[in-house]
């Protein structure tokens, strides 16, 4: 199996606060990897390092074959990113958003045009090509944002709470898009506060106070913690946290 993310003792300190504390893990190609933790556990800081946006204080990280400290620009080119808070430009049209992001990732104009047609058709969005993104319902926006994030066929896509505030049916459709991407070999690295979504991941890690305190398949975690569901697993681990966002 090919490893696409590997960290070894990855650590980030801000002054004498250790936001990410010596985390080591591997993610395989095509895997759906759930990255869980309470608010303030260090998820965002860890994710920023993996995306090449923040340099580690110590430790090592390889993402898509590049060292996150030595070659952060190459890391950025090999990944896609989407979050609930920022995904698309509201004041640009649907096609303009696709054009913009694909251009930023260095795709050729001709390829973009061809692929845009195919994507809009696949999503059933053909009639929305010239709509401003702000006029789309939230669920449509999130599906489009995900498709834009993987438009340049990145090796890995990072999703930061992609389904927050989305209705239950759309939330599930969104996960079906995630499965399709994973089946095509795109590795999915996802954070969520919905514990049922943790069950859809191949493996799940749970961060507590900057450390990874548990990492396994949902099934093994439930066995290990003698829990009926991932919500119980999460509560057992997060309750032990010394520091908190509160």
């Amino acid at each position, binding site marked *: 199996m090919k490893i696409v993310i590997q960290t070894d003792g990855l650590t980030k300190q801000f002054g004498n606060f250790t936001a990410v504390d010596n985390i080591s893990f591997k993610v395989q190609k095509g895997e759906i990897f759930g990255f869980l933790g309470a608010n303030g556990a260090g998820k965002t800081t860890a994710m920023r390092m993996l995306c090449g946006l923040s340099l580690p204080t110590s430790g090592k990280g390889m993402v898509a074959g590049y060292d996150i400290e030595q070659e952060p620009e190459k890391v950025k080119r090999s990944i896609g990113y989407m979050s609930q808070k920022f995904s698309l430009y509201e004041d640009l049209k649907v096609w303009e958003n696709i054009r913009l992001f694909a251009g930023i990732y260095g795709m050729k104009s001709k390829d973009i045009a061809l692929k845009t047609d195919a994507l809009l058709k696949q999503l059933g969005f053909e009639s929305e090509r010239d709509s401003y993104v702000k006029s789309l319902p939230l669920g449509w926006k999130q599906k489009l944002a995900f498709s834009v994030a993987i438009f340049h066929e990145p090796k890995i896509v990072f999703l930061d709470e992609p389904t927050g505030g989305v209705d239950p049916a759309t939330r599930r459709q969104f996960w079906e898009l995630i499965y399709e991407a994973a089946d095509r070999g795109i590795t999915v690295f996802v954070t969520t*506060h919905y514990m049922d979504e943790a069950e859809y991941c191949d493996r799940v890690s749970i961060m507590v106070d900057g450390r990874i305190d548990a990492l396994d398949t949902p099934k093994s975690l439930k066995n290990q913690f003698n829990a009926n*569901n991932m919500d119980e697993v999460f509560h057992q681990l997060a309750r032990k946290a010394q520091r908190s*966002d509160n």
Partner: protein
Amino acid sequence: MYAIQVEGLSKNYHSAKSGKYAGLGKPSASPDQVDGVTFDVHQGEIFGIIGPDGAGKTTLFRILTTLLVPDSGTAKVDGYDVVTELKDIRQRVGYMPGKFSLYQDMTVEENLNFFATVFNTTVEENYELVKDIYQQIEPFKTRRAGKLSGGMKQKLALSCALIHKPSVLFLDEPTTGVDPVSRKEFWGMLRKLKEQGITILVSTPYMDEAFLCDRIALIQDGIFLQIDSPQGIIDQFAQTLWAVRSNNMSKLLRDLRAHPAVDTCFAFGDVHHVTLSNDSYTIAELHDYLAQLGHSTIEVHVIKAGIEDCYMQLARRVDPHSNNH
């Protein structure tokens, strides 16, 4: 006695006839609209408005807190009309908007004092009410509000919304983006406020929070799909609901949907929830069908619906396109 009475309340930011979503299965809904909503909230009740972003939750809250004038319909809060008696209402309600709206450049202490003063009271006078919550952030009382963590901001905002001892508290998505453990803790605080007799109207996109409310309204595109106690809503789920599991869950989803008798099929954590258009179908028959398609370790059993099952079923009845791709 009702703390809130709403009848036929509507607000639409765009013309309903703009046809913006023509052909998209969203014929006339504009985002955030409220469309003919009617409901009552009893005094001392925790009433939840549950639905996704854009469903109209914030619009409803803004009308009830007199910050927005409805297009039509009437609403009374604590017996006062939201349009003609807005000043009376403003003195009686506490409002915690979804977006952090305190003064970022003032300290924790200054913010709380400020809100007390605006309402002609003092922190000391009503300290008992906010004590449990405020004590958790008191060690940071000289810190600027803008420098607080998310959880601390939330507690300060709640303290400020309570400091004038409101009779009705409006909390617009207080737990959005908050992890499950902190969410549970926040709901614990609400239960304590309820014990003090405060009526709470709270909105949330998290369906699992429904059971923490006395009664709930499920909202979609500005319409209330149903109003009842959480248990009442679940009891009204009309179809038999099956939980199905096998060794290959993504193939299972496709195979179940391809079955002619399957009405709906959705992933629910480690099982799929299935309803059938024909309730005379048996577990054994479904089992055989899946075994023939190569599934192993098949488990099929009948389960009770949850709030999400109910929401999806009700939403589909109103807008049959909403569950399609």
